[in-house]
Each structure stands twice: as C-alpha cells, then as structure tokens.
C-alpha cells in the first residue's frame, strides 16, 4: 500500500467515524424534539400509559387549554398573590427582549461609532476599558448589584432592567467598532456638505451602512433575552416571562400545576420554543451565513 493511500485511508476513517457520531447526535436531537412535539398532543391518560408512542388522538385543544390553565403565581406588594397566564407572560417576554435589545444595541453602536470615527481624548481610553472589562474576570458581583438595585429602586422593575443594559462594554462593541472602522468617512463628509448634523450623519448615514451587523447582533441579543429565564429568579420576580414560566412548570409537582399533566408542560415547552424557531427560520441566512465575524482577534 502506498503512503498516500494510507493517508487517505486515515481521512476516510475520520470521515466515517464523524459521520456516524454526528448522525447519532442528530437522531437523538430529532427524536427528542419529535417526542416533545408528539407528547404535547396527547391526553394525560394516553401519555401516562404510552409515553413513547404516537398519540391515539391528537388533542389540539391542549394548546388552547394551556393559555387558560397554566399560570405563574407572583406576589404583588399590597395585593397579594396573583396568577399570570400565558398572554401576559408573552407580553413580558416581548417587552423585556425588545427593550433590552434596543437599549443594548443602540448604546453600543453609538459608542462604537464615536470611538471609531471621532478623534477625542476618551476614544482610546474607552476602547482599552472595554478590553480590560472583557479579559479581567470579576466573580461575585451579583450581591453588590442586587444591593445597589434595591437601593435605587431598580430591583423588580422592568424598565430599569432595560436601562441597565445600556453599558457599552462587551464583544458586541468590539464587532461594531471593527465594522465602523471599515466604513469610509467620505459619506459623512458628503452629508456634512449637504448640511447634515452629526446626529443625522450617525443615524441616517452611518448606521444604515452597518445594518447587516446591527441586525445580526439585534437578533442574537433578542434570542438571548427571550431565552433568559434567570432574570426573573434574580432581578425581576413580579414580571415573569414565558421562559421563566416553563422553568416553574418543569420544577413543580406535575399534578399541582395543571390537570393536563406532562403533555401540558411539553405544550408550554413547544410554545416557548416556537417564536425562536420561526425567527431562526426567517433569518436563517443571517444566522448561518453572516456570523463569520468570529475571527476577530482578541
């Protein structure tokens, strides 16, 4: 056997092993999602007897019932216990995700633009501060943050939590800065001649030039905040989101949360997952194609 054949043989073995491994992984992933989806259409008794098989009858009403029956209990000062159902849970999810995404992206984009395109004394300082914040790991800020939030009235406040996302530091800042650096300043000069103000140049000329990057960052931020259920546990107990509701259901005694049993919880799982899957499908090219800026050096 020649040397090259041995080498190609190694590659062939690697490909077969990886194909098998990835196939097994894919089958488990598809199987689990399919199991959740099929089980969500089952009646409680059907699921209890046959947790693996196809539903004897598809109970589409499960999806209607969870909107009426599944709720999260919150304690409102002065009122007492209050049940929050899925429409309101989704509303909080949406407000939290959109609010945090908008504040976070706009703040970072503004600072990144200023640092990339203007010469002022703070510019290199801000860039360096961001790098320091990214590389110096600080553990255990949570108690201090919670104490401060309670002291200034930011604890358990949806609007305040969105405002808190307005800091400029993080990887998104680096990506936006790198992108703004590649945009020519000549467009701004042309707009200046036409009498545009600094703000108009930023908002109407420069931001649209980097809209692809802003869009992908906004999408990833939105998904992160939509999926964030810890926020209710940690900072915002009175405004439960849909993801937090799912956490509550899956960690509660199954008989205590609903008459529908496990299928109801799996319905809730599907309902929480659905908006993200739709978003992913609509913007799949952006997700799978545009995220090639990972090569930024640190």
């Amino acid at each position, binding site marked *: 056997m020649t040397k090259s054949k041995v*080498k190609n043989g*190694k590659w062939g073995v*690697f*490909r077969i092993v*990886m*194909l098998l491994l*990835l196939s097994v992984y*894919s089958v*488990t992933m598809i199987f689990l999602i399919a*199991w959740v989806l099929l089980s969500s259409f089952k009646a409680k008794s059907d699921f209890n007897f*046959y*947790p693996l098989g196809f539903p004897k009858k598809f109970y589409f009403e499960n999806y209607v019932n969870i909107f009426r029956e599944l709720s999260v209990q919150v304690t409102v000062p002065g009122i007492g216990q209050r049940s929050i159902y899925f429409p309101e849970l989704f509303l909080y999810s949406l407000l939290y995700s959109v609010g945090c995404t908008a504040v976070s992206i706009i*703040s970072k984009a*503004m*600072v990144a*633009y*200023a640092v990339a395109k*203007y010469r*002022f004394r703070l510019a290199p300082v*801000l860039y360096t501060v961001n790098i320091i914040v990214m*590389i110096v*790991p*600080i*553990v*255990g800020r*949570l*108690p*201090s*943050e*919670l104490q*401060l939030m*309670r002291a200034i009235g930011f604890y358990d406040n949806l609007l305040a939590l969105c*405002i*808190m996302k307005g*800091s400029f*530091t993080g990887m998104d800042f680096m990506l936006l800065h790198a992108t703004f650096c590649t945009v020519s300043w000549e467009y701004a000069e042309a707009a200046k001649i036409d009498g545009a103000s*600094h*703000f108009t140049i*930023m908002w109407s000329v420069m931001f649209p030039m980097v809209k692809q990057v802003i869009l992908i960052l906004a999408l990833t931020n939105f*998904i992160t905040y939509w*999926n*964030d*259920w*810890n926020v209710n*546990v940690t900072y915002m107990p009175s405004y439960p989101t849909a993801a*937090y509701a*799912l*956490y509550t259901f*899956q960690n509660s005694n199954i008989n205590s949360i609903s008459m529908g049993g*496990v299928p109801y*919880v*799996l319905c809730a*799982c599907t309902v*929480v*997952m659905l908006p*993200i899957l739709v978003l992913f499908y609509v913007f799949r090219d952006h997700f*799978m194609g545009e*995220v090639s800026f*990972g*090569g930024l050096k640190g």
Partner: protein
Amino acid sequence: MSRKEPKKGTDRSSLREKVKWGIYDLKCAFHNKVGVRLHGKKTSTMTKARVYEKLFLAAVLAFPLTIFCVFYIGVNINSIFLAFKEYDSATGKYFWSGFGNFKQFFEMMNSEAFMGYAWKNTFILFAVNLIINLPFHIINAYYVYKKNPLSKTFRFLLFLPSILSSVITVTMFKYFMVYGLPGIYKLFKLGEAPNLIYDPSTGFATIIGYSFWVNFGGSIILFLGLMNRIPPDILEAASLDGITPVKEFWHIILPLIFPTISIYIINLLAGFFAQQGSLYTFYGTDARNEFYTFGYYYYIQVLGEAGVPKYPVASAAGLLFTVVTVPVTLFARWGMNKLCPSVDY
C-alpha cells in the same frame, strides 16, 4: 461673562485670593474653549463646528458611560466594601465587620459537606469542557467546513441548541429521562429504569452527559466562520503540494484559528468558579450535596429576600474567587500569546 484680572502683585497665598485667581482661571478656560467674543475680541481657537462635535460626543456617550460607571465600576467597588460588612436583620442596615465574612467563608469551606463535592464537580465540569467539548466543537466545524456528507443538516442541528433556552433543552432532556426512559425499558423488557437525574450516584454524571449533548455543536458557527475566512490560496498551495486533509487540519487550520481557541480557553478559565452545569435549571434550589458546584452554591446563596443577609459573605467569596481567577487568567493569556502569536489573514 466678564473676566476681570485680579490685581497683580497681590498675595496669592490667602484663601480669598486663591479663590479669586481660581475663578479667573476658570473664566479664561471657559472663554478659550467656547470661543465667545469678549470686548469685541475673539479669544478662542475652537470653532463652532468643533463645539457642536463636542456636544454631539457628550450626548452620545453620556448614557452608556453613566450606566457603565454605576453598574460596573460602582457595583465592583461596592462589592469590595460589602465583603467587609455585615447585615443587621433587625435594622436592615449594613455595618463594618472587618474580615469576619472571609473567616466565615473559610470555616464553611472546612465544615460544610458540599464543599468537597463543589471542588470536585467544578474541576470535572471544567475538564469536560476543555478536554472533550472544545475538541469536538473544532472537529465538528472542520467536518462541516470540508463539505462532507450531510454537512448542511449537521450544521443546522449542531447550531440548534445554541438558540434554544437552556430551560427548553433541560425540560426536553429531563422529561424524557423521567417519563420516556421508563417507557423504553418497558418496551425492551429491561426491568425498572434507573432514576438517572435524582439518584445521588448517577445525578452528576447525567448532568455531565446532558452538558456534553447540548454543547456538542457548541460554537460551530464561530469556528466555521473562522475556517471560511482562511484565504483559499493557502489551502490551494498546500493541496498542490499534496497535503492530506488531516495534515491540513493540524498544520494550517488549527494554527490559524488558535487565537480564537485561546480566547475560548481563557473564557473557560475566567468562568471557572461561575460554572453551574445547569444545576439550577434541573433542580432549582434543591440539588443534592453530591451535585454541588461553586457556581451553583454561589447563585442560590443570594436569591430572593432570604438572600439579602448573605450578600456580605457571598461578596467575600466572590472577592476571593476573583483574586484567584484574575492572575491565572492573565497568566494563561500571556502563555497562549507566547505559545502561538496571532496571525493576520
């Protein structure tokens, strides 16, 4: 605004004169900066355009910088102070307590049963992430990059868990283990299914298994993006020299993407004490001692109203963790840069 110069020769050492000269200096600075005409004479070198630029920059930076100062600098400084304070439940106020919180934390490390498990489990999670998960992320990305069979399908399925909430993947996994697995055992007549998630002997291993499964794709898009950025000329030249895909991976791909791998490793190190391994998602606050990690212990300490009195001890613990993590991380970063300097391509 007038700026009448104080009389020359007056004694500047008196407080009154100092204030006078101070005000005069400030006025001069103001006139020079803003550029107002005074007594028909332009004193500033700053143009109107420059003033507008400064105002624009101030407006753009004010909000993000305020948030950063309050919620990063302020919080971290407060965290240091908090580590040396104690909470009085009766008055609801904090008072200085010296090193009492540190002493309490060290005593707890020696006495509490879960601390031994927390050390062991935190190291296991870190090792699994570094030694098993990270290599798979890179190899998976390379398989897809080389456009092998089913690579598009694999790319989608490997990326999928990273856009789903951890609570969704945990619910799917946990419910299948609790309700689906007994069904499989029954179907194949294997006897009674083990309670993998709650059994103390298998619980943490199951969490590790879940972590491996859900992170199998990991940063596929990141690594794939990096590989796609490698100039085709380099690979074509190597291919003309008869390089095999395995050698191409070891000698071209890996060195070129190493700067990002090093950042990944540094992030793992930086998050050493914060890793939870989804324990809170699986068990809430009721995880068994055998499953504890530092990240989990730390997180459940400060939750809710009951966590308020524990803020000082948790801050002391956080400060200690930071003191350990910062030099290790910075040393690792220095070492990585020495080992494999970044290459521009």
